């Protein structure tokens, strides 16, 4: 039974990541009409920002930037001097990362939205998917170039080390924290969108942006902020996952495909639907790991197929 509970906990943790990511995808899709393929890459960036904040970062010196040795000029046969770097140690711990990483990645996302995504308004959906896929390739490729493909360790913060004996199982505190904190963030996002005035503007702009603009609300700025919010949620999930899964450039690449399946199952019409579907699928995956481990990689996809066969519009109903 111990093993079953342990797998259930792993399932809940994966479910938290599914929920946070599919929530962000749904919010972004509502406002921008774009499926953000870069979501996995931005999740990865969140984890890396946390890593840099704690362990510092090696930046190229000004001289190396100016003489071009940071660029891959060897690709075109130009010999360059080796890159000189200097180390900036920030020493900001996990708690700072939880706050700073979503902001940093969120700002990066807003820059992406202002410089690229906004030009796709009015075009077919598929261009948004292709553009964000390209962005994901660039980000993941750059990180792979500079940090390799292997994982970097990120220590669990001291306050959350150790575990509790619950009688029926041993609960590592950090894992419990991830589930509870993610759930709190999900519910806060739900509250923000469904119950506040800002959320009402957001929902109205999703339904009819032109009309909302006519009321004097700056819809383009709201779109930018929405993208920042969705991306920030992904980065937050990245920080949460850093101590559990190692920090790797490709940590988001496979995850995003599972999250797409989650989104297909749950539909993107409802915020609460995304949250519940995310957690539920995580739990089902965890159970599969215990009862039939061979299928644990595929169970979400198989469920997607079943849902499509039985209820093609997805569980929460609205057709695309």
């Amino acid at each position, binding site marked *: 039974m111990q093993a079953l509970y342990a797998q259930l906990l792993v399932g809940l943790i994966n479910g938290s990541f599914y929920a946070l990511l599919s929530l962000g995808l749904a919010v972004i899709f509502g406002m921008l009409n774009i499926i953000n393929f870069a979501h996995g890459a931005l999740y990865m960036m969140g984890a890396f920002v946390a890593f840099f904040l704690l362990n510092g970062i090696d930046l190229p010196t000004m001289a190396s930037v100016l003489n071009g040795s940071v660029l*891959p000029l060897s*690709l075109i046969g130009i010999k360059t001097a080796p890159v000189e770097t200097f180390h900036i140690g920030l020493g900001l711990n996990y708690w700072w990362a939880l706050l700073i990483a979503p902001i940093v990645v969120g700002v990066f996302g807003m820059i992406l939205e202002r410089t690229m995504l906004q030009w796709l308004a009015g075009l077919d959906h598929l261009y948004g998917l292709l*553009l964000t896929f390209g962005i*994901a390739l660039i980000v993941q490729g750059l990180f792979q170039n500079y940090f390799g493909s292997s994982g970097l360790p990120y220590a669990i913060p001291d306050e959350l080390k150790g575990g509790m004996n619950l009688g029926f199982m041993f609960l590592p505190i950090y894992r419990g924290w991830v589930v509870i904190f993610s759930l709190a963030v999900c519910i806060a996002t739900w509250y923000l969108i469904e119950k506040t005035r800002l959320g009402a503007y957001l929902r109205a702009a999703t339904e009819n942006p032109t009309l909302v603009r006519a009321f004097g609300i700056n819809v383009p700025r709201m779109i930018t902020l929405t993208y920042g919010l969705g991306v920030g949620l992904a980065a937050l999930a990245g920080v949460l996952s850093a101590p559990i899964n190692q920090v790797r450039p490709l940590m988001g690449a496979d995850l995003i495909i599972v999250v797409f399946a989650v989104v297909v199952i749950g539909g993107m019409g409802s915020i609460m639907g995304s949250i519940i579907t995310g957690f539920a699928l995580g739990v089902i995956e965890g159970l599969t790991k215990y009862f039939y481990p061979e299928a644990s990689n595929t169970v979400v*996809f198989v469920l997607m197929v079943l849902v499509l066969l039985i209820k093609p519009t997805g569980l929460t109903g609205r057709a695309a």
Partner: protein
Amino acid sequence: MSVVTDDTLPAAPRAVRDEMIVFVVMAILLAFVPATGIYPFFVMQALCFALLACAFNLLIGFGGLLSFGHAMFLGSAGYFTAHALKVWGVTPELGILIGIAGSAVLSVITGYISIRRQGIYFSMITLALSQLLYFIYLQAPFTHGEDGIQGIPQGYLFWVFNLAKPTVLYYVILVAFLAGFLLIYRTINSPFGEVLKSIRENEQRAISLGYKTDQYKLMAYILSGTIAGFAGSLKVFVAQNASLTDVHWTMSGEIVLMTLVGGLGTIFGPVVGAFIIIAMQQYLAGFGQWVTVIQGVIFVACVLAFRRGIVGEIGHYFRRSL
């Protein structure tokens, strides 16, 4: 509704004449490749991918359906053909037939599932289905997991053509490519193709005219998947292996990229795009992940500034349908 290309010209007699001229020029140029001393392996590989990209383009360019899982046909047909050739020891033509039949069955099943949702959901579903297959192939014993199926015998096609000889293999691949290309070309210009284009432009109106659009889309998907499988079977003879990379989502992305670079919804665009992307991979092979970065940059540049693609831009400039 969805507008993939903004300058689709009607298939006027002049357009058909232009396209046939370009086709003949392309066939003649390709036929002279072995005489030029260009590395034939590169051209053969590019031809396989060109056929694959053309099949993919049939779906997106003329049906408006973006499949993000077309690698599953490439990889599956490759595995089926490779297994049949190596383990069962069948002849090459039978091996290719098995690959085609396998991918046809696969496309019927995945098409039936994915056609149920429209637009962007269709892309996500095809991506998820190909990832599902990836994990199945990763665990299935006959694919040999990470190693893949290697050292596949090439054999004699129709008991006559020795496929182990590069020149013979080259012309076999070329003929197969041209046949596949003509099949796609014929489909696009058939009444079926016209209905498909009308669905792409305005599905509601096509429905109101009495067309069962789901059946047309499914038919296009099956045709596209089967021809993609044909390309996958051919590739086995060129590469002499079948591996997981051919089923991975990065491969699906590359297929999309080839078509996007050449021009979505153009006749010859996917061929041009396939040659460019394969050449790029060939020459940049030593530079690790920079290839990924460059591919990403091309994606972004194409979507933001260059949506017609190379052939699309040329056709637009000369006001010709290519």
